[in-house]
């Protein structure tokens, strides 16, 4: 069933997304509920996903230099 009050306000303009002419369309990926939203008031469009469990999408490989903002020669890297 359609969940009650899933996403209520536009993250961009703060107006109500309950307006029926705004779009709040729920779909699923393997692990998450995703709300595709389009705001009638400001036309902002985006996807909103409740975070059930905090996970890192990509694990930095061991020995990797790929840390943003840190040069390979940085003294902070061991």
């Amino acid at each position, binding site marked *: 069933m*359609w969940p009650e009050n899933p996403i209520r306000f536009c993250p961009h303009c703060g107006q109500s997304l309950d307006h029926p002419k705004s*779009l709040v*369309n729920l779909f*699923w*990926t393997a692990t998450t509920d995703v709300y595709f939203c389009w705001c*009638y008031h400001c036309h902002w469009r985006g996807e909103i996903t409740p975070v059930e469990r905090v996970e890192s999408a990509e694990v930095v490989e061991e020995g990797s230099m790929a840390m943003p903002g840190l040069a390979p020669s940085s003294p902070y890297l061991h």
Partner: protein
Amino acid sequence: MLSQERNQLLTQVGPGTPMGQLLRRYWMPVAIASELTPTQPTKRVRVLGEDLVLFRDRAGRLGLIGERCPHRGVSLEYGIPDPKGLRCPYHGWLFDRAGRCLDQPCEPPDSTFKHRIRMAAYPVQELGGLIFAYLGPEPAPELPRWDLLVQQGVIRTIGWCVVPANWLQIMENSLDPIHFEWLHGRYFEWVFEQQGVRPERWTLSKHHQKIGFDLFEYGIVKRRVLVGQTEEDDDWRIGHPVVFPNMLRVGDAALHTFQIRVPMDDTHTYHLWYSCFVPDPGVEIPPDYPIVAYENPIWEADGKRFVVDYIDGQDMMCWVTQGPVADRTTEHLGTTDKGIILYRQLLLQEMAKVERGEDPMCVFRTPHERIDLPQEHSRYRDGGQLSKVARVWSTKYAPNLEEILQLVHGREDTAMLL
């Protein structure tokens, strides 16, 4: 999944509804021109929740007026054509194309009663073998001259069907590219198995590796990459469009088609399959070959089972079994359904334009010769694939299909998948 309120907003098309107001900005085909003949010059038409009668008067002009005579409500479908319009069969009142009453033969000759009678009347125009009506606010925009409606040197057929389902689920089918590999691929293979038929190879089951959707000037372009293909193939590089709001364009080098979905009311859709057969290079076709119309069946003779041994019958089985209005409060959309979501968003976006007093997408105000749409040539790396399946899709029911195939190939047709 949508709220009930949003499902209603997107599916209700009657006068006064927001979707009805958006759809009334467009010329809608309401008949195939050849349906109106000297002996049958009227057609009862239901469009966007209104009951109307289309007619050709004795001067050859088209009109579209309210179905019921304002006198005592008899259907003007049985009207008598007149040089100035259409007469009611019951007491002879005469109506013109503007919905005025010109004559009430049984009222006193000096009566002005007729001037007080007015009925609904809408502009109509004929193009490419179809009759289009405009039910929206004046001034009417230009009738779009989409390429196939005006294309020279092709042979046309027009299939039609009244589908007992809401228009939106039919359109959403066109934003769902992967149904092709299942419904027209694997499911068709199952139908063949049930029938004891063995097609040599059934390319429609090819697996989708990637699908994509892009907004363009006239709607949404759909793209696909099938197993063994790259983004250089036509299926991705060119793609084919859903023309806003209610038309699918699909085809290849040999066959160019529109599927047009006209909402009749919330639970019925007038569906047209407009097909243009392209002759092989160097083949001359007769210049005045007629446009043949035919009905596409939904039901087997028993009236219970769907006709599922042709592509469009399979689609109709899906549209109709979703229910008269698909319940989107219980659907479970996955990642392959994002085209459907994009289309819903586009509908709301264009609806908002109408509310602001602007013209929505695909309303044209300037006269034009022709509007070209993207056209794939080799779909599924199979060249003129669609004409190879002409015997198992809508055109299967064109009574002159074999003759057309012979004419466009300039020889006996052998290159069929079946």
